[in-house]
């Protein structure tokens, strides 16, 4: 929950600076990894893992999600399910082409 005392806000500000420095470092690491010339699959995994961690820092500390109400978590859980469903359904449709179907184009 959001704090009201000046001391608590100062403590939060300290946290914001730490997160900012972490995000800068992770950005530079993301770019540096590119020059390791990993195989594509490995590069995708590494890039997305770092991006997800960066996003979780922004969401948890800048968006205060780490101390948010249960209702917000519930809304976001539905969002994650729908987004995952979207990607999974699209990719499974791409990979599961049936034989014997006439394609017009």
């Amino acid at each position, binding site marked *: 929950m959001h704090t009201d005392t000046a001391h608590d806000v100062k403590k939060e500000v300290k946290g914001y600076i730490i997160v900012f420095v972490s995000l800068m470092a992770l950005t530079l690491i993301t770019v540096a990894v590119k020059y390791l010339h990993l195989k594509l699959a490995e590069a995708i995994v590494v*890039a997305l893992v770092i991006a997800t961690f960066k996003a979780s820092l922004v969401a948890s500390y800048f968006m205060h999600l780490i101390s948010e109400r249960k209702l917000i978590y519930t809304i976001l859980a539905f969002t994650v399910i729908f987004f995952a469903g979207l990607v999974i359904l699209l990719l499974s449709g791409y990979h599961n082409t049936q034989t014997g179907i006439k394609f017009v184009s």
Partner: protein
Amino acid sequence: MEIIPYTVEERPETGLFNAKLGVWLFLASEVMLFGALFSSYILLRVSAPAWPEGASLLSVPIGTFNTIVLITSSVTMVMAWASLKEKNLKRFRFFIGSTVLLGLTFLLIKLFVEYHAKFEHHNFPSKSTFLAIYFTLTGLHGIHVLGGVILNSYFWGPGSKMFLDQPERFTNRIEVAGLYWHFVDLVWIFLFPVLYLL
């Protein structure tokens, strides 16, 4: 003047002030919007016979610089909110002003450096699938950045008058605007490696 309820005090049923619930619902819809485009990118790339390396068409140093600009603007945005929690309007205007300037920097670099360079070399969206999805994703993201810049400019300017007679309500407005701005930064955190580094 009629007072709109639950702009400051939390609604008992939700435990939140109304605008916060509203903005999180809005952001959930935005996740689906960008999610649909990211899914399109995945499908286009997977089904393409060949796909260019992002760095061969896009400038990694410029993309990295823009990423740093946007992350910094996220920090200044949350510092603007923290300044209001400490009842410091002057510091708030410094930080929200910085957020606006950083957002404008991002947009100007995107438009006049990156897009301009593309168009100069006749690299239009119609030229290839990569460029089509690149311009769609970054263009839509850029429109969101522009919206945030306009909103934050209002809060830096005439909007900040509300702090004088309704400080908590104005602080909550900035919190909600901050949630939107952090989301815009979040989208770029994924866009940058996907388009520039892979």
